[in-house]
C-alpha cells in the first residue's frame, strides 16, 4: 500500500481534506454506497441490519438505565421500580430494554433461519457464519446476566440453576461454580460481577459485529438463489436500493416492537420476577426467558446431568462445524428437494423444543423433547452429510439476472466446484 494522502474524489473541500487524511468517507461510500449487492434479496435479508439497530437500541437504553440502577441485593429490585416510577420516561427505557432483548432474539433467530435455509454458511462464508455464532453466544450470556439484574425471584433462581450447570464439569465443577458466584451461593458478589459483565459484553458483541460485517464485505452477500453474481447485471448498489428496502423492514420491526413495549410490556416476562428475590422461597416453576427454552428443553431431555449440559452446549457448538457437515455444493434449499423438507422439520423441532422447554418436565413433554433433540442432532450429524451425496439437486439458474433456466441443463461448473474443494 502506498504511503501518502488518499486521492479523495469528494468535491466538498472540508470532506476532501479529512478524506485525504482519513478516508472514512471513501470507505462508507464504497461499503455502503456503491457496494455491489445481489439484486434478488427478499425481505429475509433485512434481518442483519435490524439486528445491528437492535444492538444499538439495547446499548442506548442500557446506558441510561445504568445511570439509575443500583447493583446491590438489598436495593436492586427497588431501584428498578424507582426507574419505572420516578425517572423521566424510565418506564419506556426499561420496557424498551427488556422487550428489546426479546426482539433481538426474534430478529437473530430469523437471521439464522435465513442463513440455514439459503445455505449462507457455505464456502466462502464459513468464517462469516462462525463469527455470527460467536455473536449469538455472547448475546445469550449478556441476556442471561441482564435478566439477573432486577433481582426478582426468577433472576435469583434462574441464576442459581444456570450457574449450577457448570458443576457438572468433572472434578473442578464445584470450584468453578464457587468462583463464578464469588461465594457459596448466588449473592451480592454475583450480582455485582454480572452487572459489570452485562455492561462490558455488548461492546464485545459490537466488536465481533464489526468483524462479521467486515467479513461479509470481503465475500459479498449470499442471495435467495445461492449462486454467485456473475457481473454488474446481477447486482445493484447498496444505496439507494437496499437502504430503501431495509427502511421498510425497519419500520415493520418498530411496529412489532412498539406493540410489545406499549401494550404488552410484560407478556414475554414472568410474573414471579416482580417478587423480590428470596433465597429461602423457591418459585413453583423455574423457567428461563423464552429465547432460551429450546436449549433448556435439550438440557432436560437428557436424564444424565453432564450429558444434558454437553448436549445443550453442543447444540450451539455444532454450528461451528456446520459448513463442513453439509457436503452439498448447492446453497439454497430452493434447489434441494430432499434437504428442504428435512430442514423444515428441523425448524418445527426447534419450535417444539421452545414450547416443551416452558412446560413442566412430565409426560408427554419429556418424550417429545427427546425425539426433537434427537432429530436436532441427527439433522446436522447424519442427514446433511448424507444428503450431499444422495440428493440430486434441481438445475441451478444461469445467473441472478436470468433466473429462469431454459431447458434445464446440467449444474453450472462454478457452483459445483468451489464448495467441493472445501469438502
Amino acid at each position, binding site marked *: 500500500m502506498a504511503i501518502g494522502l488518499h486521492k479523495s474524489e469528494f468535491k466538498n473541500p472540508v470532506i476532501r481534506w479529512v478524506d485525504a487524511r482519513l478516508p472514512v468517507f471513501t470507505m462508507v461510500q464504497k461499503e455502503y454506497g456503491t457496494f455491489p449487492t445481489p*439484486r434478488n434479496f427478499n425481505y429475509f435479508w433485512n434481518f442483519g441490519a435490524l439486528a445491528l439497530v437492535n444492538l444499538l437500541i439495547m446499548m442506548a437504553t442500557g446506558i441510561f438505565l445504568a445511570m439509575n440502577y443500583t447493583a446491590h441485593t438489598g436495593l436492586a429490585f*427497588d431501584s428498578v*421500580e*424507582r426507574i*419505572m*416510577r420516578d425517572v423521566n420516561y424510565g*418506564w*419506556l427505557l426499561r*420496557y424498551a430494554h427488556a422487550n428489546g432483548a426479546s426482539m433481538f432474539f426474534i430478529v437473530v433467530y430469523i437471521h439464522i433461519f435465513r442463513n440455514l435455509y439459503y445455505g449462507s454458511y457455505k464456502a466462502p462464508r464459513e468464517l462469516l457464519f462462525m463469527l455470527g455464532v460467536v455473536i449469538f453466544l455472547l448475546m445469550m450470556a449478556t441476556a442471561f446476566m441482564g435478566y439477573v439484574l432486577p433481582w426478582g425471584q426468577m433472576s435469583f*433462581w434462574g441464576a*442459581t*440453576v444456570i450457574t*449450577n450447570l457448570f*458443576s457438572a464439569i468433572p472434578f473442578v465443577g*464445584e470450584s468453578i*461454580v*464457587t468462583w463464578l458466584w464469588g461465594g*457459596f*451461593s448466588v449473592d451480592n458478589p454475583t450480582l455485582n460481577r454480572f452487572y459489570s459483565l452485562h455492561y462490558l459484553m455488548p461492546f464485545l458483541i459490537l466488536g465481533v459485529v464489526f468483524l462479521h460485517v467486515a467479513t461479509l464485505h470481503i465475500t459479498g452477500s449470499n442471495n435467495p438463489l445461492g449462486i454467485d453474481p456473475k457481473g454488474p447485471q446481477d447486482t*445493484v448498489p447498496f444505496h*439507494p*436500493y437496499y437502504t*430503501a*428496502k431495509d*427502511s*421498510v423492514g*425497519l*419500520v*415493520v420491526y*418498530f*411496529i412489532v416492537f*412498539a*406493540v410489545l*413495549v*406499549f*401494550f404488552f*410490556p*410484560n407478556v414475554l416476562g414472568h*410474573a*414471579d420476577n*416482580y*417478587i423480590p428475590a428470596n433465597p429461602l422461597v*423457591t418459585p*413453583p*416453576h*423455574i*423457567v428461563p426467558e423464552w429465547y432460551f427454552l429450546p436449549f433448556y428443553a435439550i*438440557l*432436560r431431555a437428557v436424564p444424565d*446431568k453432564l450429558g444434558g449440559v454437553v448436549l445443550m452446549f453442543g447444540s450451539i457448538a455444532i454450528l461451528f462445524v456446520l459448513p463442513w457437515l453439509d457436503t452439498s455444493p448447492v446453497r439454497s434449499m430452493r434447489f434441494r428437494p430432499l434437504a428442504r423438507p428435512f430442514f423444515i422439520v428441523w425448524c418445527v423441532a426447534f419450535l417444539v423444543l421452545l414450547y416443551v422447554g416452558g412446560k*413442566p*418436565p412430565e409426560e408427554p413433554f419429556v418424550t417429545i423433547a427427546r425425539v426433537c433433540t434427537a432429530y436436532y442432532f441427527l439433522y446436522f450429524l447424519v442427514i446433511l452429510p448424507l444428503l450431499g451425496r444422495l440428493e440430486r439437486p434441481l438445475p441451478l439458474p444461469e445467473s441472478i439476472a436470468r433466473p429462469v433456466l431454459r431447458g434445464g441443463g446440467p449444474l453450472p461448473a462454478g457452483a459445483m466446484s468451489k464448495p467441493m474443494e472445501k469438502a
Partner: protein
Amino acid sequence: MPAFRSLRALVLGLGLMAGATPALAAGEGVSLPDTRFSFDGLFGHFDRASAQRGFQVYKEVCSGCHSMHLLSYRNLRQLGLSEAEVAGIAATVQVMDGPNDEGQMVERPGRASDRFKSPFPNEQAARAANNGAYPPDLSVITKAREGGADYIHALLMGYGDPPAGMQIADGMHYNKYFAGHQIAMPAPISSDGQVEYHDGTRATVDQMVTDVTQFLTWAAEPELEERKAMGVKIIIFLTILGGLAYAVKRKVWRDVH
C-alpha cells in the same frame, strides 16, 4: 461447608428443573373469570373515582397487614386528590425521622413526600402477627401474579366453603383461585358496607373488590395511561411512515423490476 451448600443448591436446582409445578397444578385447574376493567385495551385508562375508593379500601382494610412501600403519598395526586387532601392523608401517620441536630431520632407527622407507612417494622414482626404467614407488599402485586388484575379480583371474590371432603389446615381459609386452595389470609372484604365510601357509592363486596383492584393496578403500573396513549400515537406514526417507506422503495426499485 461450601461444597455441601453448593451441592444442595445444585440438587435443589436440578430438582426444580426435574419436578417443577406440582404446587401450581392445584390452582391451574381453575380458569380465571375475565373481568372487564377500564384500563384494559388499547385506550385503557384508570377510573379515578373507583381508584380513589380503592385507596380508601386499602387504607381501611388491607393496610392493616399489607405494606405498599414503593408508593409515596404524593403519588395519590395522580388519582385526582388535591395537594391539601394528600397532605391530610400523609399527616395521619407518624414517621420516624432524623437524626436531628442533637443526634436524636424524632417522630413527626407524615408528609406528601414520604413513602406509604408499612404496618410492620420488618418481615419477622409481620409473620409474628399473622400466624407465621407474611402478607406480601402490594406495590406491584398485579404485575407479580399470573393473571394480574383478573387474578386479584378473582382471589378477593374467591372465598367460600371448601368442597365436601377437603381438609383445611388450622388458620387457613378456602379460596377457589389460590394455588393449593388454602390461603392464610381470611376473606378481607366479606360484607356489604364494610367501608363507608366518602362519595356515597354503595359499598357492596363486588364494588369494593373492583375498586381496590383498580387502585392496586394503578399502584403497580402508574404509567399505564401515558404508555398506552403514547403507543397509539407511535403506531399511527409508524404506520404512515411505513407507507411512505414502502412508496419510496417502490419508486427506487421501479427501474430494476
